[in-house]
């Protein structure tokens, strides 16, 4: 006969803790910190930031110091000026290592759960697939945004401090570059999320992200060259990320024009979020 026992008394409602999105994001941040992935890239980004600050200070001195008057014209010729200089704060020099770091960390966000078959267990808790997607995608986007912030705010604040409104950096720079950083972060987050969702392991996820970023850049470049149409570069997330700061700073000859950039970015975000949603739906997370 079955073993019957008294029915359990009604239990108190447990739904008073953190939202599952916050729980999963916190858990992944802890894992990233434990993995110490930030040490190497932290050094790289710090070096780049110091370089930017040094250039900024040189520009300031070239404009204000008599001792530097001899190199002023030369500096004006070899260094970027105007909108190009402003947009360059999150230019390719920053964006290329940024994509590498995002690939390394973001590539494993979903793939690690696939490898260890954790997703079904999460869905067996009060976690909806959209919570899962939001947590992973949110972190994948938050990371590149956080990395870009110092490259915008530190030079801007230093320029204001040393030279006020007449400094080498526009007072309105954050207004131009913060939206660009947000769009780049969303693009990078979506690409890494989709790539990671397609991969079966973190290494494969890293490979997928790099494959998408570099492969599409090569393809876009090839098509642009063959068909003499720059718009094909919009196939590449790297090209799109390069174009946004230039467009928002009003550069005369940006990497890509507004139309292809907007369409390309929207298409990439929609495509990779769709891929991730398909690959992380409960029917894909069977026991």
């Amino acid at each position: 006969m079955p073993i019957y026992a008294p029915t359990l008394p009604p239990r108190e409602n447990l739904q008073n803790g953190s939202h599952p999105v916050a729980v999963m994001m916190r858990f992944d941040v802890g894992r990233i910190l434990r993995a110490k992935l930030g040490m190497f890239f932290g050094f790289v980004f710090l070096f780049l930031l110091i370089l930017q600050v040094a250039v900024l200070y040189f520009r300031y001195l070239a404009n204000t110091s008599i001792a530097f008057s001899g190199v002023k014209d030369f500096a004006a010729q070899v260094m970027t000026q105007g909108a190009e200089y402003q947009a360059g704060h999150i230019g390719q020099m920053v964006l290329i290592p940024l994509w590498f770091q995002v690939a390394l960390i973001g590539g494993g966000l979903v793939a690690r759960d696939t490898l260890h078959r954790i997703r079904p267990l999460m869905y067996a808790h009060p976690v909806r697939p959209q919570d899962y997607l939001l947590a992973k995608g949110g972190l994948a986007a938050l990371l590149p945004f956080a990395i870009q912030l110092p490259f915008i705010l530190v030079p801007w604040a230093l320029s204001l401090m040393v030279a006020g409104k007449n400094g080498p950096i526009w007072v309105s720079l954050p207004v131009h570059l913060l939206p660009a950083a947000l769009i780049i972060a969303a693009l990078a987050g979506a690409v890494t999320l989709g790539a990671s969702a397609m991969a079966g392991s973190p290494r494969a996820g890293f490979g997928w992200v790099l494959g998408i970023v570099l492969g599409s850049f090569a393809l876009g470049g090839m098509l642009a060259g063959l068909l003499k149409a720059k718009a094909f570069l919009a196939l590449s997330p790297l090209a799109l990320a390069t174009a946004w700061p230039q467009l928002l700073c009003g550069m005369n000859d940006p990497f890509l024009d507004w139309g292809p950039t907007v369409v390309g970015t929207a298409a990439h975000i929609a495509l990779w979020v769709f891929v991730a949603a398909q690959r992380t739906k409960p029917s894909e997370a069977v026991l």
Partner: protein
Amino acid sequence: MIKLNRASLRYGQILGLSPTTFELPAGGGITGLLGPNGAGKSSLIQLLSGLLPSSSGEVEVLGGEPYRNSSILARIGLVPEGDRFPTGLKGVGWLRMMGELSGLQGAALEAAIQKALGIVGMEVNGLKPFTRMSKGMRQRMRLAQALLHDPELLILDEPFNGLDPEARLQLMDMLRKLADGGVKIIVSSHILGEIAQLTDRILLLFRGRLLAEGSVAEIRELLDRHPVELRLAAEDARAVARWAVEQGELVGLRLEEGSAVVAVRNPRSFLPRLQAAVVDGTLPLRALDPLDLNLDAVFQYLTKDHA
């Protein structure tokens, strides 16, 4: 408490579970989900634990449809098959995350972790990284994870896989205690002996179909066309065989050393007569051993019928 009404599950063109109907009453107790690999056990578990919606029919668990139903999911504990741990993590860290996903927080979460670790006997070893835990320890941690939020329904998918005999017995003991405490437990296994040791109530699945439901004896009674084999041990086995033949109900008889094995179509009428004969001394019986009233035999009969 659990009600399936012609619920089925399809994976595209593949039918994981044919339309299935059964009902498990409220209250604690252990139900064994039995069937060979590919029988549909995991499909049924995915329906019950709310991981997938039914392709047709209705699934009701703890008073509601479990799929994407947070209030129901918060009352279910799932122990999936195999390890589900991120690398480089300590047992307690993982429990903390799973507890938070269930809505626990702060002191309540820490208390729940300590309680769950206490139930599974992992108070000390739970602090280790998973890489330094034995298979048995990891299985206990999986169980602790499912117990964190005091579930009313605990579902375990092949929990005994890979465990040594001692760890198996310990896990069975834990499950019995939980069932005695009022938790409804569903355990899946393809090993008949494991389920037979743990519970008498089974759901028997084969090729995506629910073949039978009930206790082993109840299910055995359904198998009228399969005779029951009884070993009658006696000093004079021939005399016992002669007596059995005289009863006129035999469909089979063979003599073994020190015993006669008889196959009886209707044990309900044969057994009382056997008992009476032993009591009045006409039958010198030393032992009576039903050979196919165990789960293995029931399973063999049922699956043979449906193969």
